[in-house]
């Protein structure tokens, strides 16, 4: 198998993933800061209440947030876990959570519904871009791949199991029905990125993990036993839902397949979604750009979806 090249865009992708994780760690910390600002307004008192480290963290955050006119509103303007976070007062919500909530709700959740507009527009322009650029699990699964490489070097056999692709559709309906009867927490133990952000919140706000940590660790261990990217491709229902939007996405990666060497299969071997950019229609592509980096002739480009070009209308 060919070694995967890493260009600048891959490093940029890892940087965005780490930035997303750091952002979701910063949200509860800044909320904690705001509460202590109201209660104590003094790093020494915070240090006495929560320990010396908390005092230093408070002091650092206070230096940053005192640049704003009103530190408390500035710190609380971003809040919420990945289900329903708001950045600078603007609400965003998970598309899958939105569908489930609208079915479950007694009262129509207007704020949450409007929050779904942003992510759905993103899905209709760039398809499954969430899966490899914003989802924190994309970062953790690259770490598990590093673990797998180490295992291979040492000589520990890896199972490399496969899961049928239809599993995620089954899990989607399963989650919708079960969450209707048992509450939305069911999704917290299906979608690992939600679990992760809840654990971050829990450890910072309550100084303890919730039960979700077992699920999170189980997913990481499970992923070592699977083929790379199998969890995202076959289990995660959000990936499936975004792929359905992705059929109609405005921009898509496109290969200039007429000029390709007939036997070249580099893009297929590199692709984490098992697609063949040379031939397939890429509706479940999540724009990780690995094929673009590895294409020996630079034939793959981001282009307007062939649904919307003039040829389609003729």
């Amino acid at each position, binding site marked *: 198998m060919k070694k995967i090249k890493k260009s600048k865009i891959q490093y940029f992708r890892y940087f965005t993933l780490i930035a997303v994780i750091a952002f979701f760690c910063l949200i509860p910390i800044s909320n904690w800061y705001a509460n202590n600002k109201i209660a104590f307004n003094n790093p020494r008192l915070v240090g006495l209440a929560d320990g010396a480290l908390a005092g230093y963290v408070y002091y650092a955050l206070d230096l940053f947030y005192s640049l704003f006119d009103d530190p408390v509103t500035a710190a609380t303007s971003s809040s919420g876990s990945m289900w329903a976070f708001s950045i600078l007062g603007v609400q965003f919500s998970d598309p899958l*959570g939105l569908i489930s*909530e609208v079915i479950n709700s007694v009262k129509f959740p207007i704020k949450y519904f409007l929050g779904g507009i942003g992510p759905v527009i993103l899905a209709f322009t760039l398809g499954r871009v969430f899966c490899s650029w914003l989802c924190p699990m994309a970062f953790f699964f690259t770490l598990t791949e590093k673990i797998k490489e180490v295992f291979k070097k040492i000589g520990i056999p890896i199972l490399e199991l496969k899961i049928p692709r239809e599993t995620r559709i089954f899990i989607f309906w399963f989650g919708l029905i079960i969450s209707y009867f048992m509450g939305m927490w069911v999704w917290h133990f299906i979608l690992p990125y939600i679990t992760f952000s809840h654990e971050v919140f829990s450890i910072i706000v309550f100084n303890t993990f919730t039960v979700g940590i077992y699920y999170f660790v189980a997913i990481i261990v499970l992923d070592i036993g699977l083929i790379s990217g199998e969890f995202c491709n076959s289990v995660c229902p959000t990936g499936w839902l975004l792929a359905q939007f992705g059929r109609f996405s405005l921009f898509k990666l496109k290969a200039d397949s007429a000029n390709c060497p007939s036997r070249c299969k580099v893009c297929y071997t590199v692709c984490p979604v098992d697609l063949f950019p040379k031939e397939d229609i890429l509706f479940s592509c999540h724009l990780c750009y690995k094929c673009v980096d590895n294409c020996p002739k630079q034939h793959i480009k981001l282009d307007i979806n062939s649904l919307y070009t003039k040829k389609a209308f003729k």
Partner: protein
Amino acid sequence: MNRRRLLAGIIAFLAYIPVLFIGLKKNTTSSNRKRFLRPPGALKEDDFLQQCIGCFKCATACPNDCINMASFEYGFENVHTPVINARAKGCTLCMICTEVCPTGALTEITRDLEVAKKEVKMGTAYVDKDLCFSFHGRTCGVCYRACPLPGEAIKVGLYEQPTVNPDKCVGCGLCEQACIHMPQAIRIKPA
């Protein structure tokens, strides 16, 4: 198995689905199982469980740190829903949690004591006269001093003996937090 029997089986299963839905729905809509306090402005317990998505917003926003997110210890349906343990910390009725709630599981209430009197009904306090110090000759009156509606929700008589007016009590839990008797002589009954 012949084809007709399979078909009959499928039809029977499909006919069973609505029964399943109605039955399960009935089981989950009894309000008697509410055993703990919810944040102010919460919908009725069964509606609340349908509406709440468990996003941790109210718990992180609470300046008093009184809202906890439940785990499995409160039962399966209440996982990752907000819960107030009044003995540890009562609600100060600041209403910030109702502002941040994205789904309307907590209905928005303006931060005003007069509005809170009408809108908020988290529970009702009741006094255990066998335990209360004031009913045993030692004047105490701590619950009266802690109450945000003194003289209305809790009235004190001779030797500061508290009596709760259940119509006016909002169930914030500050009296239960403040009670100096161990175990607490005044408790909030969730409603």
